[in-house]
């Protein structure tokens, strides 16, 4: 059976994928930029807009990182505003389970689901670092295992809150079965667990989706398992065809343990793209964009992250350092995911590539980091996207443009019609469809059913962590 391609639009992030030096680059914070990207995504009949989140400005060598785009809005607030300028597009935010509390965040997502007519989605992330915690009253460090334990319970509590009102109950008016006694007030809940011991009344009646769509971002073993037992979709970095197929098979295989069908969890890699009218033109454009993304200063900074030491005197147009990294020292970079597993081995590999291809520091960084995933004519990119989906490397992609706000314009104008012609992307939205409907997900499963399935499966045997989470 032909699968439908799921497409999300990632608002360009706070990192060097986003090009700010281009004359077409607009504001990273004005609402108009968000509205433009959302309207474009909706014009292209995409499934959702996706917002990432970072709660502390990155620092390197104790100073705020100043080379990349920085500054972003509060996730839920800008999504609620975007609900006013779109009618069908899903609105997916990223929020920490570490620096939030279930009552407050569940209330915000339920509110967003009401205010958008059933279009809310929550990408659950867990933060490892006390660095970010310095901005929060509940700041502090959770080790990796505890992070996912807290995240699992957090989502479970949220589901319990989301269904704490009886079906069909309204905000005001008599409720069926309600008597004069206080104990019968709607929204009563009580949860007692390892991470949370809370009780009382939730203020929000059931929202259109009841449970907003739950996504999880993280490719580690614990992250994959979390997706298998608690999420509707997983946002991954595995974008190449072969790695994608392997990841897809692994994640879908895990679902059986929890009694879930393969199609109940969608696999969505983040993916960049470069379009041009000819293949040669696309390659040329890709190289131009890479040079914009990797300025001489950015190249040195990335090398410092691998070497874990000051390399500010290094010539970006010269050769790589001839000494090895200092991975044992305290990390010089704060506020972003760990990039490298084995610093010494990676450095030696990079040195070999640079010597082999006679590359400068900057050219080497361009060569080995963040290459665009789809480069080519619209027809080629449409075919590649469809091939990945039909041959089970994924269920769709979260597209990451490199320009604000027009980075998705070409894709929607040129690639979307080709996917529609192939019958793998909707020609129009179904009126009144929720995000859950658009993604081909079943109606929300009750909280108790999720909990029972996890309990029946028992503890997951932990495996070694992959490079990033």
């Amino acid at each position, binding site marked *: 059976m032909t699968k439908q391609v799921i497409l999300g639009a990632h608002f360009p992030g706070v990192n060097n994928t986003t090009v700010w030096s281009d004359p077409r680059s607009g504001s990273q914070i004005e609402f108009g930029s968000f509205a433009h990207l959302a309207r474009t995504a909706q014009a292209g009949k995409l499934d959702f807009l996706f917002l990432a989140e970072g709660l502390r400005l990155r620092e390197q060598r104790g100073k705020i990182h100043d080379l990349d785009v920085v500054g*972003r809005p509060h996730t839920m*607030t800008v999504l609620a505003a975007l609900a006013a300028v779109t009618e069908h597009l899903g609105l997916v935010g990223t929020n920490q389970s570490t620096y939030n509390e279930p009552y407050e965040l569940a209330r915000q997502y339920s509110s967003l689901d009401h205010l958008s007519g059933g279009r809310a989605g929550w990408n659950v992330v867990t933060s490892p670092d006390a660095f970010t915690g*310095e901005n929060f009253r509940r700041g502090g460090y959770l080790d990796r295992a505890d992070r996912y334990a807290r995240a699992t319970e957090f989502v479970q509590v949220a589901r319990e809150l989301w269904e704490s009102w009886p079906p069909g109950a309204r905000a005001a008016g008599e409720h069926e079965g309600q008597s004069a006694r*206080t104990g019968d007030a709607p929204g009563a809940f009580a949860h007692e667990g390892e991470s949370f011991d809370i*009780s009382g009344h939730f*203020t929000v009646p059931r929202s259109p989706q009841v449970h907003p769509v739950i996504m999880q971002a993280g490719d580690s073993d614990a992250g994959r398992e979390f997706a298998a037992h608690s999420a509707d979709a997983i946002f991954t970095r595995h974008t190449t065809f072969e790695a994608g197929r392997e990841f897809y098979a692994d994640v879908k295989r895990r679902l059986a343990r929890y009694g879930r069908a393969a199609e109940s969890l969608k696999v969505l890699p983040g993916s960049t793209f470069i379009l041009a009218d000819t293949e040669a033109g696309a390659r040329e454009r890709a190289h131009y964009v890479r040079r914009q993304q990797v300025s001489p200063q950015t190249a040195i900074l990335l090398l410092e992250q691998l070497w874990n030491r000051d390399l500010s005197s290094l010539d970006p147009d010269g050769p790589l350092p001839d000494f090895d990294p200092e991975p044992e020292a305290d990390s010089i970079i704060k506020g972003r995911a760990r990039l490298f597993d084995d610093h010494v081995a990676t450095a030696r590999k990079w040195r070999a590539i640079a010597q082999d291809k006679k590359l400068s520091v900057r050219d080497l960084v361009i060569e080995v980091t963040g290459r665009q995933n789809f480069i080519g004519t619209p027809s080629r990119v449409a075919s590649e996207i469809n091939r990945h989906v039909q041959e089970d490397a994924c269920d769709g992609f979260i597209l990451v443009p490199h320009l604000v706000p027009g980075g998705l314009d070409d894709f929607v104008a040129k690639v979307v019609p080709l996917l529609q012609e192939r019958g793998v992307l909707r020609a129009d939205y179904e009126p009144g469809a929720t995000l859950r409907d658009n993604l081909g997900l079943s109606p929300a499963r009750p909280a108790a059913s999720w909990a029972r399935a996890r309990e029946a499966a028992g503890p997951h045997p932990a495996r070694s962590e992959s490079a990033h989470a």
Partner: protein
Amino acid sequence: MPEPARPQRQQHQVGQVGPGERLHLAVALDGAGWHPAAWREPDARPGEILTAGYWADLAAEAERGLLDFITVEDSLGLPGDVESGGLDSRTGQPRGRLDAVLIAARIAPLTSHVGIVPTVTTTHTEPFHVSTALATLDYVSAGRAGWQAQPSPQPGQARHFGRGEHPADGPATQSGTRASPGPDMRRHFAQAADFTEVVRRLWDSWEDDAVIRDAATGRFVDRDKLHHIDFEGPWFSVRGPSITPRPPQGQLPVAVLAHTSLAREFAATAADIVFLTPASVGQAAQLMSQVRSAELSARRSSQPLAAYADLVVFLDEDESAARERKERLDRADGAPQRSDAAVFTGTAGQLAALLLEWQAAGLAGFRLRPGAIPHDLERVTRALVPELQARGVFPAACAGGTLRERLGLGPRPVNRYATELGAPA
């Protein structure tokens, strides 16, 4: 209520409002209105209180009436008597509500003039999240956002957050030991003052010209114009800077509803606007003098608080109709409405006269709480506003601008961190 003699101000031409004579007008939106039985009215829309369309319509009505701002009430719990475990004999009163900041953000792009002021509690939330949420509301409304800061002492709400159970609450916490708010209101307001200070510092943690996009040096941002705020207090420490650039207004107007001297102190320390609940013109004058002395004891150096009186209003074409409607609602609810603010029943003309009389006590304006929505909201925008315009105290057209400008809260505030670095690198 007898109609007092009209003040002389009515001699002004329509739309010509002299300085210092402008009366500011806001409405407080909450569910189906402020009467607990409002949802039973034939024109109420109790089934739509959770929809965007409901709030969009109310905001459009406020904007049509040229109102200065709307407030959106909020609470992290059901109505007080339910949460505190007491008996509540009245079934069916409005209980469900959505997050006020998100309602505000949802209606911001649909409006262009009216200020939007959601309530956010200072007790259970993170100042960092609240600061960025409100800054973002200011962006999506192009400078029309404000904040009603409110402590939440209800023990029922504390149980929603299960204090002390979080693993990061232990001694390893970066912020050190965290004090439990307890029942003491003084501590709730002290925490609220700390909270507001953090929110405000974070708004200033980016200088206005921090984003430089300097291709020559490869720098997007001038890091010398981003500031750690390094706040340390008994309830939280926050390092900063914000993740959100300084909001369009620089500092959003902050409002505090004050029934007590503690709340007035908090307002004098932290706010731009204070909502008062006088029962009479005499009491309005008395409360104003208490506000001024609170400003003195708080050593307030900024512009004096702009004071607004809250009034619950039931408005009809004749006085008896308004009174009978209010009584009918009371009967439907089984008890007379309990209210912290004075309840007015009468005509728009009578209300206009009363507002002018009370304003003389030194009030900047009024925040009217419609008894029932849409009826009393529409009587405010369609009957009261023309009465005030005819009296020359309310503009005939919208002047635009930011909420600060509109409320006369002074020029855009200077960034507290901008002067510190003065010397260029």
